[in-house]
C-alpha cells in the first residue's frame, strides 16, 4: 500500500476512538429516533414462579415478572407504565428483563386504559459498543491498515445489502445470478483495495472466481448424482424462496472469502519466488504452490466449519431435549452446515492447483527443456 509511507499521526488514532465512543453514547440515547415507544425499566417484581414439566421429563420454571418503567420517546414520553412479562428460566424463546434495560413496547389500547406488552429488548447499544471495540483495537494496533480493513468490511456490507434488496425485488427468481454477479464484484473490489490494479490482482481474481465456481459446480453435480440423498432442505432456516438455489448461493458466498484469502496468499508468495528466481520452471511453481497451499488449506477449512456448524448448536440442543435420536438431530440441524463446509472445503483445496496453474501460465514459468538447455 502506497499510502503507508505517509506517517500516521498518533492523535488520529485517539480522534477515531473518541468519535466512535461518542457515537456509541449517541446510540445509547437514540430513543427519539424510534417510532415504537421505548420503556426504561426502573423496577422489577417477580409475581409468580411455577414449575414446568413436559412429556420428556424436562423441568423448567415459568416466571412472571411485573416491570415498571418510564417511556422515553414519542407521544407517551414521560408516562409511567407497568407491564407483565412471562418467561421460561431457560430463555429459549422468552426472555427475562432486568432493571435499567430499555425495551420496545407494543401499545394495544389507548382509549381508556393504556395497555402494552414488551415486543423486544433494545439491543443497538450493545451492538454499537462491540463494533466500536473492534474499530478501536484495529486502529490502535494497526493504524491505517486497520482502518482499511474496517472500511472494506463496511463497503462489502453495504453492497451485500443492496444485492439482498434486489433479490427481494425479483422474488428470488434470480438468486444465483444476483449473488454470483455480486461475488465477482466483491472479489474485484476487495482485491483492488488489498493488492492494487496490477497483474497480481488479475491472477488472484481469476483464481478466486474459478475456484469458487468450481466448488459450486461440483456441488451441483454431486447433488444430481446422489439424488440429494440425505440433504434435508426442509431443515433450512428462514427460507422464503426455492431452497436449492438459495443454498448454493449461500455456499458460494460462504467460501468466497476463504478462497480469496488463500489465492491472495499463494499468488503473492509465488510472485515473490518468481522475482527472486526469474528462471524458475512451471514444475517448480507447482511444487512451491502446493507446499504453501497445503499448509494453509487445512486451517481455512476449519475456520468455515466452525462458522457454519457452531451456529446450529441451540437448535441441536433443542432437538435432543425433545427426545430425538442423535442421527435425526444431526440430519435436521447440523447436516446442511456440514454440507456447506464440505463444499467450501472442496473449493479451498482446488484453489491451490488453480492458483499454481494460473500463475505459471500467466507469469510464464519456463518449460523444463528450455531451462535444461540453459
Amino acid at each position, binding site marked *: 500500500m502506497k499510502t503507508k509511507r505517509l506517517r500516521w499521526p498518533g492523535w488520529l488514532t485517539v480522534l477515531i476512538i473518541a468519535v466512535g465512543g461518542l457515537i456509541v453514547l449517541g446510540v445509547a440515547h437514540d430513543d427519539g429516533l424510534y417510532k415504537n415507544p421505548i420503556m426504561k425499566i426502573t423496577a422489577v417484581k417477580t409475581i409468580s414462579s411455577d414449575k414446568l414439566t413436559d412429556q420428556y421429563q424436562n423441568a423448567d420454571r415459568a416466571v412472571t415478572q411485573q416491570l415498571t418503567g418510564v417511556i422515553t420517546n414519542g407521544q407517551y414520553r414521560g408516562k409511567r407504565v407497568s407491564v407483565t412479562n412471562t418467561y421460561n428460566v431457560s430463555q429459549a424463546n422468552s426472555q427475562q428483563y432486568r432493571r435499567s434495560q430499555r425495551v420496545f413496547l407494543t401499545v394495544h389500547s389507548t382509549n381508556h386504559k393504556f395497555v402494552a406488552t414488551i415486543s423486544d429488548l433494545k439491543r443497538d447499544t450493545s451492538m454499537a459498543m462491540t463494533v466500536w471495540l473492534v474499530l478501536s483495537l484495529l486502529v490502535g494496533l494497526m493504524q491505517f491498515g486497520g482502518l482499511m*480493513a474496517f472500511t472494506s468490511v463496511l463497503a462489502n456490507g453495504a453492497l451485500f445489502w443492496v444485492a439482498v434488496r434486489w433479490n427481494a425485488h425479483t422474488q428470488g427468481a434470480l438468486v444465483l445470478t444476483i449473488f454470483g454477479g455480486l461475488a465477482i464484484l466483491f472479489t474485484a473490489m476487495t482485491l483492488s483495495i488489498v493488492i492494487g490494479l496490477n497483474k497480481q490482482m488479475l491472477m488472484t481474481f481469476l483464481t478466486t472466481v474459478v475456484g469458487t465456481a468450481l466448488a459450486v459446480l461440483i456441488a451441483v453435480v454431486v447433488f444430481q448424482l*446422489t439424488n440429494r440423498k440425505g440433504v434435508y432442505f426442509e431443515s433450512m432456516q428462514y427460507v422464503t424462496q426455492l431452497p436449492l438455489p438459495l443454498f448454493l448461493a449461500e455456499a458460494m458466498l460462504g467460501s468466497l472469502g476463504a478462497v480469496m484469502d488463500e489465492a491472495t496468499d499463494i499468488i503473492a508468495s509465488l510472485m515473490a519466488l518468481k522475482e527472486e528466481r526469474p528462471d524458475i520452471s512451471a514444475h517448480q511453481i507447482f511444487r512451491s504452490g502446493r507446499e504453501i497451499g497445503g499448509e494453509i488449506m487445512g*486451517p481455512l477449512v476449519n475456520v468455515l466449519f466452525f462458522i457454519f456448524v457452531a451456529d446450529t448448536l441451540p437448535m441441536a440442543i433443542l432437538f435432543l431435549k425433545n427426545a430425538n435420536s442423535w442421527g435425526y438431530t444431526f440430519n435436521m440441524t447440523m447436516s446442511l452446515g456440514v454440507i456447506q463446509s464440505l463444499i467450501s472445503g472442496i473449493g479451498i483445496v482446488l484453489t491451490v492447483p488453480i492458483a499454481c496453474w494460473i500463475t505459471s501460465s500467466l507469469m510464464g514459468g519456463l518449460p523444463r527443456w528450455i531451462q535444461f538447455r540453459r
Partner: protein
Amino acid sequence: MDTISALGLILLIAMVLVGGQQGFQAFLSLLFNFGALFFAVVLIAFHFPPLVVTLITGVIVLALTVFLGGKDNASTQIAFFASAAVLLILVLVIVPIEHWAVVPGFGPEDSDDLEQMSLVLGINFLEVAMATAILSTLGAIAEAAMAISAGLAEILDQHPKITLSRLRGAGLKVGTQIIGTTFNTLFFGFFGGFLALFIWFAGVHYSLGQIINDKIFVAELLMVLFSMVGVILTIPLTTWLMTMQEAKKRKMNN
C-alpha cells in the same frame, strides 16, 4: 451413497492429492473437530454446564487444529499457546457482552421451526448462546495464530540475528497483511451462512431499527465481531510469545 459421504470423499481425495500427508491430516482435523463439537452438544443436552464444556472443547479443538495443521514444532507450539490465551481473553469479552445484549435461543423468525417443540428445557440458553459464540471463533483464532507464528518463524529462519524489537515489528507487519483477507473470510463465512435470514428481512420489509435490534441478527453480528476481536488479539499475543521464546533461546546460547 448419500450426498454428505460423496462430498466428504471428494474432499478427502482432493486434500490428499494436493497436500499429501498434510492434506490427510487436515481432513482428520476436520473430522475430529466435528466429533468434538457434536460431543459438546450432547454434553450440554445432558445438563453439563455449557461454559465449562465449551472451554474444554475449545482447548481440545485448538490443539487438534493447530497440531494437525502445523508443520514445524517450535512455531506450532507457540501458535497453540497463543490461541489458547486468546480463547480465554475472548471468553472474558463474550460473557459480559452477551449478558448485556441478551440474545439467547430463538427469535420470532424461528417460530416455524419451533412448532410442536417443547420449550421446557431446563438449560440456560443464554449460556448456550455464549457457548455458540465462543465455538464459532475457534477456527479463526487457530488460523490467525498459525499464520503469524509461521510467518515469524520464516523471518527468524532467514534473519537469525534480527533484533527482538524488529521481530516484534515484523509480527505486527505480518498481522496487518493478513487482517484484511482474514476479515473477508469471516465476513463472507458468516453472511454466506445467514443469507436466508437477510433475504427474509428484505422480503418482510424490516425497518433498519427492527434489524439492528433483532435477536437473531444481533446474535449473528456479535459472532462476526467476536471472531474479529479474536483475530486482532491473536496478532500481538503470538508475536509477544514468539519474541519471548526467542529472547530465552538467545540468553541460553550466550
